[in-house]
């Protein structure tokens, strides 16, 4: 009986999904782009035609050609291979950061929204303070304070994203905490932890997932921005932000391909995540459609 209802629900979801996808070609584009990115992240190192780290002084600063599709950089490294291989690292940083802030932020926010009171008032003030900072600069300072490593870029990006999830989860739980099914669970003898974990958090999942997918694009931008400034990832690791920074020196002398291609990859990734966020919103919560 239970599984029957579930599979019915699931089939309905699928139908909504197919409908929204066919109705809006942009959503289709989002999923295609996302698929391509996932492929590049998974198989990038295998598909790369050249070693992304191998320098070759003879072929330095070559324009795009049949041999080097995206040209070569100042050390003769193949830009195409580097862009392809970098996908995994860039996406991992963004995914890691969003996952941390999403999980930690929703749990904190849900607890605040559920219990309310002094704790909530104080914590909301702390969140206000966090939001009053220029977030990108805060991330810069955090990476500098914690140490210049990839892990710390993930933590810093996660921290500056936290306020959004805390606020969202807090508001969503706040409107639900006195609803019938929560009352029923309370009467049925569920403790606070169980009510939060089993009844409230799963119910606020849709808005949190939507926020997370929109957030992913921002996290990619943020991480790449940090490494563009020389924080986090270190050369010669292939990473889009660093590659743009290296290419920036050559842009005024006309070697456009070194900065353009990693920049385009970055744009495509962020674009795909932003579209994906919209598509997920259409599928998960049709009411929010704009």
């Amino acid at each position, binding site marked *: 009986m239970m599984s029957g209802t579930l599979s019915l629900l699931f089939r309905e979801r699928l139908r909504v999904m197919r409908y929204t996808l066919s109705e809006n070609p942009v959503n289709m584009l989002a999923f295609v782009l996302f698929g391509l990115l996932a492929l590049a992240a998974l198989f990038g190192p295998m598909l790369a035609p050249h070693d992304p780290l191998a320098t070759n002084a003879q072929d330095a600063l070559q324009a795009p050609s049949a041999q080097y599709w995206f040209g070569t950089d100042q050390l003769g490294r193949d830009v195409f291979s580097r862009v392809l291989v970098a996908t995994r690292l860039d996406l991992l940083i963004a995914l890691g950061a969003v996952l941390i802030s999403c999980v930690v932020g929703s749990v904190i926010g849900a607890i605040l929204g559920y219990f309310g009171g002094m704790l909530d008032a104080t914590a909301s*003030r702390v969140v206000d*303070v966090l939001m009053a900072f*220029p977030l*990108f600069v805060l991330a*810069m*300072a955090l990476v500098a304070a914690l140490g210049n490593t990839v892990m710390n870029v993930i933590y810093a990006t996660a921290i500056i994203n936290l306020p959004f999830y805390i606020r969202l989860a807090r508001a969503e739980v706040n409107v639900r905490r006195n609803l019938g099914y929560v009352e029923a669970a309370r009467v049925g003898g569920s403790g606070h932890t169980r009510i939060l974990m089993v009844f409230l958090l799963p119910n606020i999942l849709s808005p949190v997932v939507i926020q997370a997918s929109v957030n992913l694009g921002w996290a990619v931008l943020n991480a790449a921005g940090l490494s563009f*400034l020389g924080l986090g990832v270190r050369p010669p690791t292939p990473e889009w932000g660093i590659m743009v920074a290296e290419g920036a020196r050559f842009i005024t002398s*006309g070697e456009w391909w070194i900065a353009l291609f990693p920049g385009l990859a970055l744009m495509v990734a962020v*674009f795909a995540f*932003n579209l994906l966020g919209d598509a997920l919103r259409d599928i998960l919560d049709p009411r929010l459609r704009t």
Partner: protein
Amino acid sequence: MSRILWRLLGSVPTLFGVVVATFLLTRVLPGDPAVFFASNPSMTAEDIERVRQSLGLDKSLPEQFLIYLNALLHGDLGMSISTGLPVSTELMNRLPASGELTIFAFVLAIAVAIPLGVLAALRPGSVIDHACRLIATLGVSMPTFVTGLLLIYLFYYLLGVAPEPIGRLDPFLVDPPQVTRLITVDALLAGDLETFWAALRQIILPGVTMALFALAPLARMTRASMLGALSSEFVRTARANGLSRSKVVFTYAFRNAMLPLVTTLAMTFSYMLGANVLVERVFAWPGVGAFALDSLISLDYAPLQGFMLLMAGIFILVNLVADLTIAAIDPRAGLK
């Protein structure tokens, strides 16, 4: 008036929190500024210790915080170790550059985004609506540092119409007399069209770069809140009563759609101030963001602290202005 004061008082705890946070953050930054300050090979360990004492770094954290707070209340943000000037002077010298760039980009973004969003909302599903969505998503997907570089390549290297990206004004030109410290405005005030034109040419590319990024949230929000207002009952009533289309759209719908828009405007503006760092870096713009980045790299605490405080202060101020504006547009909103 008392409400405004009350609202101002409400931001004091936030401001205090910001001060505590910046203080703590800069204390955990790596590197001993005393060693950096005393980066003279002839200096002995005792000399370094003396420098540390003179900087107050040998005291306990709470003590250091009180000293810092006291100095702050007297308008003293400390000295920049790398430039040897007071941080407040440094920041005030650079703020006009950042301000000019941000305001220019902000005005540009508003001028494009609001008409675009309104048009899209008036004809949902039309070509202009899809264009609006596409531009908004593209704009927010473009990393400012990539857009900036592309614009430089296109307009400086290929077309040769833009000047070299080396700051606010061609070094061979004389700065106009300082009135507002915004070079374009000052040049106009002095009637110096040549300087105005030169400064404008310098600011266009970084300004467009930032505007492209700010465009997206503004266009989106305009479209969404305009759609909401247009489908509301008072607009239907106004239409049914035969009011002219422009009256319905602008007086009835737009005025109401402006409320959420003002909040978004405030958020975008303060976000732009922070995101300045990247644009200023790409265009060698001598603003506060670039200064903060340089200080961070050279482990110079005080300027970074000052920068963060300045930004947080502006953020709080902008939000206050937004609240007041909302109250002026919609008396029902009042001041909470």
